[in-house]
């Protein structure tokens, strides 16, 4: 039996407001609600769908769309996507409005500048966490380090480094190395 559409919408709407720091921070909470509390998905399906969403380009928050599709097909996907995006976007819209109105205030620029360490620190941390998760074969940390140097020191598109990383992965697999 598929859950009620309003229920799907509200569940993902609530998740949207819990997702401080993006979707990677959201995964444990999403698992708790969708698998343990609602029982809409089983454990194996959840982890496979999550990995699938991470393999795709774009924001990892789309793992919510993937879960919605597994829960309630196409309408589930639409409801989950709308649910996960709307509350957060409305909040961002409101904050952007305050920012606009407060533009002249002397403290707004230094206050915003104070958020730079959070932006850079969390960006670096996500690199470490993703790197650890991706270290599934012996050469993976070297790919991570090489790409970090490439995108730091070079102004070329990082797409080259991503492609190179993929090809190294295929090479390692093709040579039968662990």
């Amino acid at each position, binding site marked *: 039996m598929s859950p009620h559409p309003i229920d799907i919408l509200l569940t993902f709407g609530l998740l949207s407001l819990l997702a401080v720091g993006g979707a990677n921070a959201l995964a444990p909470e999403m698992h708790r609600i969708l698998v343990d509390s609602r029982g809409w998905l089983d454990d194996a399906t959840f982890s496979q769908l999550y990995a699938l969403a991470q393999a795709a380009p774009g*924001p*990892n928050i789309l793992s919510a769309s993937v879960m919605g599709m597994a829960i309630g097909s196409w309408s589930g996907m639409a409801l989950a996507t709308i649910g996960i995006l709307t509350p*957060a976007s409305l909040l961002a819209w409101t904050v952007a409005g305050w920012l606009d109105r407060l533009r002249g205030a002397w403290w707004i620029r230094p*206050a915003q500048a104070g958020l730079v*360490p*959070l932006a850079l620190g969390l960006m670096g*941390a996500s690199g470490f966490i993703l790197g650890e998760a991706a270290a599934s074969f012996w050469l993976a940390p070297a790919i991570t380090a090489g790409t970090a140097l*490439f995108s730091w020191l070079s102004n070329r598109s990082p797409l080259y480094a991503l492609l190179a*990383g993929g090809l190294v992965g295929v090479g390692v697999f093709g040579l039968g190395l662990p």
Partner: protein
Amino acid sequence: MTACPALTALDKPRRNALAARMSQPRVPSCGELFLGFLQIGGLAFGGAVAWARQVLVDSRGWMTERDYAELLGLAQVLPGPNIGNFAVMYGRRCHGLAGALSALGGFFLLPLGVVISLVLLWGEFGGNPWVGAFMKGVAAAAAGMALGAALKSGFRLKPPPEQIAAIVAIAALAAWWRVPLLWIILVFGPLCVGMSLRRALRVPKA
């Protein structure tokens, strides 16, 4: 953020170059916003933050390094997808509701299409080991990209020493000790903003 009127008399490449030199970024149209964020969303393997920096600061020059890092900091403190929030706020700043919808729509269009296709292909090719090996390599490289983007921004912005200490502490707490994000934001948000305000008060206003 309004473009200098004299600039509009020049053709596009020269206008961009001049605007970049004057460090007065050009305001993109709704169509350009849509395409720019379409590119960010379509390229963003393993997270969109590093790609947003690459497209908005390096390749299109719509934002300065500082503008980008400040707005991103705010987008990360708010709940929801970081670059989704960023798209709403930057789009609103450029063209109000139309700008916010253009940026947000562009950002989600391609990834949503890809994710849906992936679910549909899931049963068919998910088990192919060659595809798996390629994706593992891409995932490792994507992690390096996030590290590289943080290093690049950090070295260009040259934050004051107390902010460098905060960056290192935040990265260590989040990556090494896996401290829940909410706590990091509740502690370091006010702390870093306070330090920054204190510095601004000590230095005479320019």
